[in-house]
């Protein structure tokens, strides 16, 4: 059994290097998870020492790309937490329907499964034609995958169950074409999506939205970074817009909480007034 080869001080050193060389700031990420991911990569790529790992990151931009891809968590699924999607269907979409044009931002969307889930909901509510879905992530590789809309066929049974639990009444398989082990989602869904890289730590607001979803991203950030990101969302959200978080995340501790009201039991908050 080997000890975690990267100590806390070394981690800090590594993050400083990366910030100086590449401009990516991971210093306010939760350290336990970051350390675990870095340790995993270090072991996977068989580095003999921390010094060599550090040197490689300093000198090899390609390897840094791999670093970003591997240390960020990209686990997601379609219609994750079906009751959440049921609330979107029954409570949120009817309100969004009153807008002439709907803009939705999935921040930290990974491979895009939740963006496709939202597009399906919008389509079934007859709103997709007047909606635009923005999917962003820090990791360029997952954004590439999201754009393609191709997911493993092996997941479809689970997704179909989620779909039914979320209140879906159509045949879920009508949304994709299966080819061997892959399922390609309908281009009528993809047409309303825009995918791009965006770093929540350093990039600015790029539009105004009626709904922002950021699920299971904030758990990887320390409190100070969480509040910065909440401010970014607040700034990017129209008045009376909605912010949706992961099932174990809360905006309770943020400075903007006073101007938001939780919708039912789900992790969805509605902006009640703008900053004074």
């Amino acid at each position, binding site marked *: 059994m080997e000890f*975690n080869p990267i100590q806390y001080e070394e981690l800090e050193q590594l993050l400083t290097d990366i910030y100086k060389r590449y401009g990516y700031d991971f210093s306010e990420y939760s350290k*336990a*998870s970051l350390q*675990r991911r870095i340790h995993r990569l270090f072991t996977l790529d068989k580095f003999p020492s921390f010094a060599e790992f550090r040197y490689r990151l300093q000198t090899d931009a390609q390897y840094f790309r791999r670093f970003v891809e591997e240390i960020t968590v990209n*686990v997601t699924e379609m219609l994750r937490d079906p009751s959440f999607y049921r609330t979107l269907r029954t409570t949120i979409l009817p309100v969004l329907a009153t807008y002439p044009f709907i803009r939705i931002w999935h921040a930290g969307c990974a491979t895009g499964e939740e963006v496709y889930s939202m597009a399906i909901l919008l389509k079934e509510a007859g709103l997709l034609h007047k909606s635009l879905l923005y999917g962003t992530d820090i990791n360029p590789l997952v954004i590439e995958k999201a754009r393609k809309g191709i997911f493993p066929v092996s997941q479809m049974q689970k997704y179909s169950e989620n779909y039914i639990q979320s209140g879906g009444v159509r045949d879920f398989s009508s949304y994709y074409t299966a080819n061997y082990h892959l399922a390609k989602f309908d281009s009528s869904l993809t047409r309303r999506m825009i995918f791009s890289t965006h770093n929540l730590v350093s990039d600015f607001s790029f539009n105004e939205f009626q709904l922002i979803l950021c699920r*299971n991203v904030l758990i*990887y950030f320390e409190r100070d970074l969480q509040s910065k990101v909440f401010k970014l969302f607040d700034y990017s959200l129209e008045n009376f817009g909605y912010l949706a978080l*992961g099932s*174990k995340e*809360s905006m309770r501790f943020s400075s903007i909480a006073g101007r938001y009201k939780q919708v039912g039991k789900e992790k969805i908050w509605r902006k009640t007034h703008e900053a004074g």
Partner: protein
Amino acid sequence: MKPDRLLLIGGSAGSLQVMFSLLTAVGNDFPLPVLVILHRNSAFDSSLEELFFSRTALMTKEVEEKELPAMGTVYLCPADYHVLVESDHSFSLDYSERVHFSRPSIDVTFKSAADVYGAGTIAVLLSGGNADGADGLAYVKERGGVTVVQDPRTAEVSYMPQQAISRMQPDHILPAEDISVFIRGLATYK
């Protein structure tokens, strides 16, 4: 004051009754925080919490992200999240890949806790049907922590404790009743 010891109890199939008996055995003035890592099906989520509430005098709650552990409180890992321990002792949640088909994974939490608590880590592994927990226990031991495995002969499902014993040498291999005695002992022994 920040607790300098953490009691971890990991279990899977067949461990729930033992967990209840362990938690009933400890008094409500137990001087350590307790973190329970139980493989669970998210569909039965809420009922599990209620069961724990009704079975122990200790304060029982689900782990919230960034929460600081308090003594005498039992924390349950939420379904579908790994629980990690930060250097300031706060818990953090992680939605990364399953380990041994499990999230929460016992290995993940045991290792992360041992990185922070070192010799103050007390890890107990109970009944279960997969190999999760064995690596974590070995890691706890390397870090100077105390490791306890339920005697496989007394476990409803012996595979998990058996795996641990075949991979490492736990400090104690005990039947369930004796684990209760051991845990009560933690309250007096430092």
